[in-house]
């Protein structure tokens, strides 16, 4: 499988980074930066901030490479985690959260029935199927939080629903997703 070969290659590069191999670090960046930049842009909607976050994240990756545990997860997932938490922090620090209604379209595209684009892989199709089993507004809450970095407060405003309800939507949705994906 293409995806497996890719993951194995990233593991190999990551081992190089742990050995302080600068060429491996450069190759890791080349292979993953566009996807990571796309993720940061989706959360921050602001190019300069997304650039800062990408830069910070890779410096952290270099510094903490030794703490990456290949037993526990894929390289890409680790990189995304390093980046996402930074991007979300940055977003939260903004005094004024701009209106982000424009982001609805791709959200809905994601939530729509699995179209099964080959390069997006079976895992996305499975997740889409499970997301599809949630009710519409809880599903939106999950996607807005994960893909766009919304906080509970923002979800509450955006979905015009009390914050307590939004919290329990997310919790229940996580339980249902887990059952659906693992079951």
């Amino acid at each position, binding site marked *: 499988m293409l995806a497996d070969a890719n993951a194995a290659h990233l593991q190999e590069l990551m081992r190089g980074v742990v050995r302080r191999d600068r060429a491996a*670090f*450069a190759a890791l*960046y080349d292979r993953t*930066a*566009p*996807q990571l*930049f*796309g*993720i940061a*842009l*989706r959360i921050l909607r602001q190019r300069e901030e997304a*650039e800062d976050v*990408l*830069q910070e994240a*890779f*410096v*952290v990756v*270099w*510094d*903490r*490479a*030794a*703490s990456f545990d290949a037993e*526990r*997860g*894929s390289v*890409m*997932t680790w990189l*995304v*985690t390093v980046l*996402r*938490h930074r991007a*979300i*922090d940055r977003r*939260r620090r903004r005094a004024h959260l701009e209106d982000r209604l424009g982001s609805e379209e*791709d959200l809905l*595209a*994601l939530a729509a029935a699995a179209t099964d684009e080959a390069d*997006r*892989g079976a*895992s*996305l199709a*499975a*997740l*889409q199927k499970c997301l599809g089993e949630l009710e519409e507004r809880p599903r939106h809450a*999950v*996607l807005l*939080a*994960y*893909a766009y*970095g919304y*906080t*509970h407060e923002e979800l509450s405003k955006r979905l015009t629903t009390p914050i307590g309800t939004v919290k329990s939507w*997310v*919790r229940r949705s*996580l*339980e249902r*997703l*887990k059952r659906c*994906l693992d079951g």
Partner: protein
Amino acid sequence: MNYRDPKLRDLLAGEYAMGLLPPRARARFERLMAGDAALARLVTDWQERLAPIDRTAVPVAPPRRIWRAIEQGTLQRSFPAPAPTPSTGLLQSLAFWRGFAGAAAAVAAALVLYIALGSGPARAPAVVAVLADSTGTPAFIATRGERAEEIAVAPVRPQSLAAQKSFELWAIAGGPPKPLGLVSATPGKPLLVPASVVTAAGTVLAVSLEPEGGSPTGLPTGPVLFQGKVLAD
């Protein structure tokens, strides 16, 4: 909160992976995770479940200068500490911020300001430097020991350290890093170093990850995980 309740653990792991925990709760959760492999495993499981959503973000090639900045940033990692962002914040005592070490950069910066203003509480040990990780989270602290000629360096809370690895402390003041000895990953057993080596303001104290027993070369061989500037008296 009862962190042993399996349902709650899994739920928090999920919320953490979603990015929904507010900053302070997240810092607390990360501290728990550092000492609880099973909890870290729950988080990874959630990250892997949700990861397909990441692939729906449209890839965008970042400008080349970002890579150049990363290259520079990581090459220079062999030192100059990142300047903390000045910020105001609460800070009553060492014990206080020990408890809230997760409040990170702002707290470290506030501490620096606080000490610079010379208004530290009388009982607090004199802080010589705060060594933070690359996110600005304080990890080690250097304080003036009971004897004036000694500086004590110890972690502010247990740090995770892989088997067969050691933390080694270095002083950098212009020339090549000077090894100061191995520093424990757990609080309570400070490394005592001669004050004369570290007290010049502007000296950077750094902790690198080394093979067990320390660097075989006399220079850092592993990544510098924590660093901080010695504060002006």
